[in-house]
């Protein structure tokens, strides 16, 4: 710039404008900062993407309705792409730099467990959206979770198998945290239901062909059914290969594939696959007496109207996480981390998309087996198994 006077004038205007906006911001109450690290891209994308969309949708909705305890919500989301190291870095950033009040995130067990030590150390309430039971067992002071555990999935599946007279099964799991954890849990509770595991295979996270493993399983003596703990593209490929090999026995998936994306990817191969999932997927066919009906139908309507794509249980877990946090903040009447944590632990009778939540000092998840429904894929859609 030529004239020093002109330069001074422009900088003065800039400073004034900046100060003016800063000043107006201070007049409002400080926002409630909700931090989140999700796997929006990568192998867990069809879990993380609806989670991000749900959080954005409801934070906006809550703000339009006036916010929570008179303050607006501010959502800060980072994408860890399913990488545990990145998740840990983002969690650190949320706690130290963004100074969030509560964290709702950790799409996968791997990313959750990588970040948990940070929340415990810093004393920040953390609601995880991942499946493995290890997240809340042993109970950690600051860590809660919304999805059903993998152990519950095993129990629901084994209960269904027992009713069908199945006693010898095979397992094929991926290499991820949730896959491994659910496989462990299933092996632990199999005896209780009279189930013996006669085949046990695994595949890598990015594998594109599981016919070798399935061929081994096919030839296991006396095998009657197959369980595939996992999420993402692995189970879709397992399902496709399963049909390709002409395997006719019952195939059970976990709640890690509770999304229409799975049916789309697996195509016709998904026909007849059974899995435990929350009532959200069958919202319309729930009887009116079901306590969850209002919540799930409402969420389904909002989400599908805004995004034009079908709901998945993962978005539902994010919904539950957000509203559990919001209710806790309301009950604590502040964002003091200790008070919010106590309020979260005292949650009773919260009706969410996953079920009715009753937390306690020893139970930071709050769901029981009735929250899980056994579904079956028929003609590309979810149906309820009686």
């Amino acid at each position: 710039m030529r004239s020093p006077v002109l330069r001074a004038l422009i900088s003065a205007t800039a400073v004034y404008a900046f100060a003016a906006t800063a000043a107006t911001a201070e007049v409002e109450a400080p926002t409630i900062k909700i931090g989140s690290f999700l796997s929006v891209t990568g192998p867990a994308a069809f879990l993380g993407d609806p989670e991000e969309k749900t959080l954005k949708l409801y934070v906006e909705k809550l703000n339009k309705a006036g916010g929570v305890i008179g303050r607006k919500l501010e959502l800060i989301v980072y994408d860890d792409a399913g990488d545990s190291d990145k998740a840990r870095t983002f969690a650190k950033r949320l706690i130290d730099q963004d100074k969030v009040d509560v964290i709702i995130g950790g799409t996968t067990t791997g990313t959750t467990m990588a970040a948990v030590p940070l929340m415990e150390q810093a004393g920040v309430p953390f609601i995880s959206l991942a499946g493995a039971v290890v997240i809340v067992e042993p109970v950690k002071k600051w860590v809660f979770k919304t999805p059903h555990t993998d152990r519950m999935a095993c129990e629901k599946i084994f209960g269904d198998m027992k009713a069908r007279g199945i006693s010898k099964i095979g397992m094929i799991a991926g290499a991820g945290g949730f896959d491994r954890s659910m496989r462990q849990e299933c092996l632990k509770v199999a005896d209780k239901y009279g189930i013996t595991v006669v085949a046990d295979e695994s595949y890598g996270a990015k594998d594109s062909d599981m016919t070798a493993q399935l061929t081994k399983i096919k030839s296991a003596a006396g095998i009657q059914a197959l369980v595939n703990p996992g999420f993402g593209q692995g189970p879709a490929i397992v399902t496709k290969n399963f049909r390709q090999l002409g395997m006719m026995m019952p195939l059970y998936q976990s709640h890690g594939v509770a999304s229409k994306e799975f049916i789309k990817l697996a195509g016709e191969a998904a026909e007849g696959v059974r899995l435990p999932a929350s009532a959200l997927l069958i919202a319309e066919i729930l009887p009116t007496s079901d306590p969850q009906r209002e919540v799930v139908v409402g969420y389904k309507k909002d989400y599908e109207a805004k995004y034009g794509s079908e709901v998945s249980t993962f978005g539902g877990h994010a919904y539950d996480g957000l509203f559990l946090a919001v209710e806790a903040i309301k009950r604590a009447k502040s964002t003091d981390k200790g008070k919010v944590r106590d309020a979260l632990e005292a949650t009773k009778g919260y009706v969410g998309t996953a079920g009715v939540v009753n937390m306690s000092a020893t139970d930071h998840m709050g769901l029981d087996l009735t929250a899980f429904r056994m579904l079956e894929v028929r003609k590309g859609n979810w149906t309820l198994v009686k």
Partner: protein
Amino acid sequence: MAELLQFLFSGLTVGATYALVALGFVIIYNASGVINFAQGEFVMAGGMASAFLVAAGVALPLAVVIAVVAGVAIGVALEKFAIEPARRAPVVTLIIITIGASIAIRGLAQLLLGKQFHTVPPFTGDNPIVIGGATILPQALWVIGASIAVVIGLGAFFSRTRLGKAMLATANNRRAAQLVGINVRFILLLSFGLSALLGAVAGVLISPITLTSYDVGIMVGLKGFAAAMLGGLGNGIGAIVGGLMLGLAEALGAGYLSSAYKDLIAFVIILAVLVFMPGGLFGKASTERV
């Protein structure tokens, strides 16, 4: 017996893909000494393009052709805009440029086409064919059949046409080729285009069986490179044999040893070849005249 046959079928199918990718590596290496680490992205481009075209309503045969053309276009663009301006740089620099290009292409795919996985409908249906107690998908027959056709076509191109012979001459001795009037720069462009063609064809063939997403290129590229090394970098027959052997090793390893370590097999092969047999199975040990 049926089990072994099943493993052989899956090994050959995925091996054919690796063979095509390995051939792509070899063609570019022969023409310029550069190892093109963006080779895997050509496969991704073929698969993703066909997935998107079909989802947009284009008929499958046309979508496949357009997808392959798109892959070739990306290969040619890569050579024109990333390699040619740097042609005076040492080979190592060019290799690093291809790594950068592969990251860029992946990023573009992620931005433009999204992060989800996509399916492509199989060419002639989904019903498995039973042979000797093992099943094989019709699509797998397409993969193997089309790969054989491409390889025969390539062989004819190199031995019967002038352009093909010019490419072989350039690979043999670049300076001498220039002296007899071969346009070496065009040969380089052609080699990238051919490699991209091979990669994109592999991509459109294999996507109906596996799924496709923006980052399938990484693993496929690395394994194709392992196959090319196994066969002897610079040797076309070696690349094909290397690819098939790698595919079979993976399938048999997963079937008879442990399924958890399937990916490990390709990387162990790269390490073993580099340490014990740098010339690969068919390569000659190279000597430098001082």
